């Protein structure tokens, strides 16, 4: 599953570009600018009685990438994702969505961008209690003025996509939490947006349902290849779905990298405390620990794929001699892993 997604993610075009974005609650942009703007440190902000929920956030998200933002409660995750859609007006900085300056868009243009390019899933579902499943999913299309027959047909497609067939006329009160979030997902995808925001979409669900929905999300993403901005405070969840993870601490993004990067090379203490409990073998991929083939070495007797996680291919280790080849589907050998390196990862925390 992982392999396919990793392969299908093109790395070329930038979907969202975030440059030095600040969100300071309590201050207008002018006040913030006057008080020192981006130069202000934590103390200066505190003296003013302002809350800097996002400080100097800079990152690019590529088209089709799954970008996860992680952090403790209150670290500014929700604020940053709302800045990206201007539900919250950033205090400073620049945001480009598919090349266009989001912060310069007029209200009508902004509405248009949200209608056509963005979808969002909320932690507590945010369904309308007076509309049934079909009504909720079709709602974003209805307000765009689509004729009833059309939006209902599209809503039915979405119902099927998220596996709620047969419940079209149920109301939110008649659904379980997991089912409600499926409706939320279907609604956010109804207008086929290119960018998909999810703010802790599974946090309000119990663990088994959460895991189901994570799988569901991966399945959908494989099919639809959206640009995904996913908020969570659960590292396991982040590792399971992320291409890259950004870790936030008190409004600042302290590290951005692949799950392996974060675990193998944490930028600071905060990050390493986050990642300490994660078994490395479940994260590290074969290609990360392979080394080039030495000419004088013997033939490898076992193979793994470059994106295979070490823990998943432990079987192979049992059958192998000393050398394990890393080979892609086309049969090209990228490198080799010796038994020792393999075991070191397995044994490591």
């Amino acid at each position, binding site marked *: 599953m992982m392999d396919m997604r990793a392969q299908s993610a093109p790395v070329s075009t930038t979907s969202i570009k975030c440059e030095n974005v600040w969100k300071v609650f309590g201050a207008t942009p002018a006040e913030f600018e006057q008080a020192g703007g981006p130069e202000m440190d934590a103390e200066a902000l505190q003296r003013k009685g302002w809350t800097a929920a996002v400080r100097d956030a800079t990152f690019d998200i590529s088209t089709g990438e799954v970008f996860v933002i992680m952090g403790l409660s209150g670290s500014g995750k929700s604020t940053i994702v709302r800045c990206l859609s201007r539900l919250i007006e950033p205090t400073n900085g620049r945001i480009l969505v598919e090349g266009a300056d989001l912060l310069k868009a007029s209200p009508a243009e902004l509405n248009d961008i949200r209608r056509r390019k963005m979808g969002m899933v909320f932690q507590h579902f*945010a369904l309308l209690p007076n509309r049934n499943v079909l009504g909720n999913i079709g709602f974003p299309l209805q307000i765009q003025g689509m004729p009833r027959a059309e939006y209902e047909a599209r809503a039915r497609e979405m119902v099927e996509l998220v596996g709620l067939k047969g419940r079209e006329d149920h*109301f939110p009160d008649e659904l379980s939490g997991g089912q409600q979030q499926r409706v939320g997902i279907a609604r956010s995808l109804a207008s086929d947006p290119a960018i998909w925001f999810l703010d802790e979409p599974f946090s309000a669900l119990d663990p088994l349902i959460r895991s189901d929905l994570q799988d569901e999300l991966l399945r959908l993403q494989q099919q639809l290849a959206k640009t995904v901005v996913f908020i969570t405070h659960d590292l396991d969840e982040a590792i399971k779905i992320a291409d890259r993870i950004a870790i936030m601490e008190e409004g600042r993004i302290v590290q951005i990298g692949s799950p392996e990067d974060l675990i193998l090379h944490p930028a600071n203490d905060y990050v390493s405390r986050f990642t300490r409990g994660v078994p490395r073998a479940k994260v590290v991929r074969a290609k990360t620990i392979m080394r080039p083939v030495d000419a004088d070495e013997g033939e490898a007797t076992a193979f793994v794929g470059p994106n295979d996680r070490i823990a998943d291919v432990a079987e192979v280790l049992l059958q192998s001699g000393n050398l394990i080849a890393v080979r892609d589907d086309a049969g090209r050998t990228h490198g080799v892993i010796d038994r020792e390196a393999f075991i070191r990862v397995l044994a490591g925390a």
Partner: protein
Amino acid sequence: MAHADISRQSGQQLWSSPSTRALIFLALLSSAVWLGPTWTRVIPDALTFPIATTVGDALNWFAREATINGLAVKDMTRAVASFFDYIIESVVIVLSKGIYTGRGLNVTQAVPPLSWFAIAGAMVIAAYRFGGRSLAVVCAVCLGFLVIFGLWENAMVTLASVLVSVLLAMAIGLILGIWSYRSSNVENVTRGIMNVMQTVPIFSYLVPTLLLFGYGPSAALFATVLYALPPMVHNTVLALKSVPAEVTESGKMMGCHPRQLLWKVQLPAALAKLAVGMNQTIMMTLNMVIIASMIGAGGLGFDVLRALRKLDIGSGLEAGMGIVALAVVLDRLSQAAAHRAAHGQHRKPGQLPLWQLLAGWLVIATVAALVVGPLQSWPAAWQVSTAEFWNAAVTWINKELFDVLEAFRNFALLSVMRPFSAFLAAAPWTLVIGSVAALACVLGGWRLAALCTGFGMFIVITGYWAPAMNSVYLITISVTLAVLMGYPIGFWLATRPKAQGTAGFVLDTLQTLPTLVYLLPAVMLFRIGDVSAVIAVTLYATAPAVRYAMVGMAQVPKARLEAAEIAGATRWQTLIWVRLPSALPTLLIGINQTIMMAFSMLIIAALVGTKDLGQEVLIALNRSLVGEGIVAGLCVACLALICDALLKAAAARATSPARSRAQ
């Protein structure tokens, strides 16, 4: 708590504590009143101004002679009145009267109104859809009662007024509420106005509308809409504020325009909370429509009023029970409908949409009623009346129980009520206002004291001091009784979770009954007079007391109770030392609510012959004295606002020490 504070303070601070200063102030004031000139004891003429007359003249001029842009106000109001008369009349024609042709003796009904069979059936069908079998049965029984006892036509007249008023009140309330939600300046203004409006007694609304719109249904309509507006506005703001931020955000993310956001996202998401306001609006409307029969609304209220005036208890009780039946149907049906609208429930396979079902039913039932006469209008010969029975019961009571009742009445009057009323009447006005101000100062500081003094002085200046003291006396006795009865019941219910369901139902029903209904049993037992008034007010005000006592007790944190239990406290000790202190703020607010309910009932109780402010308003109403009606009504509002301010300050004080200690 105050004692504990004082004991901890050093001698120096003791002298500067507000309570001590207030006591010293009062001591000085009483000696000054005792020794000083007469004007400190009896309000001098120089201090009262003919405000009522001035207001009355101004309003009369406005209503009769003023012109705006060359258009006479009188013509405008009359035009508006006839427009709304026309609307109400059309609804009455559909529900109750039908269309007549011909003149004089040749009048014939050309088109009958919707038959009772059609209307009642439709309501029962809707009840079944919304609330299942039990609600359908409740509605069927209540509506059947109206039909069998021959109250149907009048009930439909009342229903017509209620429908039109409710729609108008909801529409205006919704608009004002949305406006207030969007702008905090507007909210401050509307909140202020609405707070005063809620304390102005019900009759006071009738006087100016009568002046502006003349005797008839539309004057009643305006009074009703005004009266029912505040809860609708208040609840709309609350409901909109309670919409989760995520829901609003989801609307924005889907690209809603501001109007779409409000009408398609926020209002539907607020519907469950809005429904509370709608239900309150409906019940207040019903209450007011009943009262407004005094100025020409007609319907069931008129029967009760006539019966009260003629002391024909039997037919009064019957019409009163008709009101109860209508109230129960409206309350339960509107609640269930609102719940359904807010939450939704999918249709089972094969179920028709409700509107198709109802339309189909109306057609079938109308055809059936045209064929089968009794389905159109219930034959007089089949009507049952229990009026005779009730009148006989009253006669029996007066004969057999006369000694007991009379002994009770005399005891209450001579030993409690008269002395207390005489005491208040004789109390020097300066001392009364001074005491209130001192209390206000202790509870809430100087500004509160100034506010209360201002309200008190208004009563002095307008010359309504004596009837106001009479109101204070009636309110004090009734509220004391209501709290003494209601609080123990509430405490007891709090420990019996099983009884709470039933109790909730009874309380709900009691609180939905229009105020007028409460007078009937009191008059039946104690004839006209203060005792009846006190009993009616007490009956009406007990329900909120019970409810707040229950809520207050239920809010006591479990951990504190367990701690007391482990410490080995007896039930009494737990009640006194743990439960009551924790529940104190809620209990104080409960007393406040009880007082507010008592005030609203006290005004109605003027109908059974009190001598208080309510009577002044009633007299003004009967004689069309606009100024007097309004000013006396404002005096009631002043009394209510003083009580409200004092008790809210007390409740705030009871809450805050607990919070500061916890930190």
